[in-house]
């Protein structure tokens, strides 16, 4: 699969407020095809919120997100075609088997990727017929990553993709992410550990740098 899009995904002056608390403001980034942007920052700095804004699950307080000059923020049609979002939660039904879950999402997301082949790549193919509730958290994460691999979207939003993965899993994922970059895909990943991405193709965005600060006391309020 090759991606032909050659334009840059750009954010302009993005700001996010959760409840009454400003999370970040003036956030700018550029994400050309074939590049990865690694989001870093302290807990609560807004990494997940930024991803949810891009995925259209949260509305930004202000700012724009444009691709090739076109506004794409909250554009449901564009999002469903281009964005593959892996949240903290795996989106898998514990009562159903891994294969049933993946087939269901394949139907919902209109693709017919070879589930077994993709599962092999992340080393979960031996568990395809097991209910998700029997899996360990690392295995469940691998199952959720299989959905990402099957997904037709070319922009991956991965929120802490390595949670629960063992060292071998992290290495496998790094290989798969680098492969995705090589074929022109984009990755936005929030993480606290080293993902093993090709350094020439990835840059780091520290979300904490854009923290909205009024007074020191303001910062100490709990998030919710």
């Amino acid at each position, binding site marked *: 699969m090759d991606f032909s899009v050659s334009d840059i995904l750009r954010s302009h002056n993005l700001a996010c407020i959760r409840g009454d608390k400003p999370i970040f403001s003036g956030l700018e980034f550029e994400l050309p095809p074939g590049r990865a942007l690694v989001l870093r920052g302290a807990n609560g700095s807004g990494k997940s919120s930024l991803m949810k804004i891009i995925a*259209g*699950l949260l509305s930004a307080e202000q700012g724009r997100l444009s691709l090739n000059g076109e506004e794409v923020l909250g554009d449901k049609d564009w*999002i469903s075609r281009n964005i593959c979002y892996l949240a903290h*939660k795996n*989106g*898998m039904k514990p*009562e159903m088997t891994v294969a049933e879950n993946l087939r269901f999402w394949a139907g*919902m997301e209109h693709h017919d990727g070879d589930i077994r082949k993709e599962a092999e790549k992340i080393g979960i193919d031996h568990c395809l017929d097991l209910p998700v509730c029997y899996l360990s958290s690392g295995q469940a994460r691998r199952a959720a990553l299989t959905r990402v691999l099957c997904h037709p979207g070319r922009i991956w939003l991965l929120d802490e993709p390595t949670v629960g993965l063992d060292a071998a899993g992290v290495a496998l994922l790094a290989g798969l992410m680098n492969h995705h970059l090589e074929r022109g895909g984009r990755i936005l990943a929030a993480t606290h550990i080293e993902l093993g991405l090709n350094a020439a193709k990835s840059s780091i965005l520290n979300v904490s740098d854009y923290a909205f600060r009024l007074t020191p006391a303001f910062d100490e309020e709990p998030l919710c």
Partner: protein
Amino acid sequence: MLKLALMIIARDVRLSMRHGSASTLVVGFFIMVVTMFPFAIGPEQNILQRISVGVIWVAALLSCLLSLDRMFQTDYEDGSLDQFVLSPVPLELVVVAKCIAHWLTTSLPLIAIAPLLGVMMNLPAEGFLPLIYVMLLGTPALSFIGGIGASLTVTLRRGGVLLSLLILPLYIPVLIFGVLAVKATIGGYPAMAHIMLLCGFTLFSAAIAPWAAAAAIRSGLQ
């Protein structure tokens, strides 16, 4: 589009079957509530006969509430709801499919067991078929209206009680016309007006629930 809706319905029905307890619990609750009435009111046959239709309907409404809070809650908790919002499938379609799945797993078992409870409540013989028909026409409204309530409370941790308070008043039209329709048939009066009003309410709820619930979910996820 239809295929996607069928997939979601099949998934939810399958989940409910695997979970096992959900439908059984609802039917058990339904039987228990109706059974309480002969104990409380006494075995006078004519009194039981008079209240039978009403009691069965009220018990059906309450049982329906039991499983409502899980309609979107489990999907919210395991992250599936986010994926539904992101997927190319319109959220409105997801809501319709989930309401239909709720009806299949909750109301249909209730309707199946209702004649048995009719016997216990001394329902007149000519009332059994009308009871089933009218319940078939009226209970979809319970799932659709319930879907709105469930979507409003999806992000609340203990939304169950709030959900009941929100939804039960909206169930009153179903109760009124459902009971009247069955009673009119038993009494030999024309029941068509009640049945048509009941159907109208069901269609109305089916028409507004998808939009209302989808909007509630979108703002709830914020």
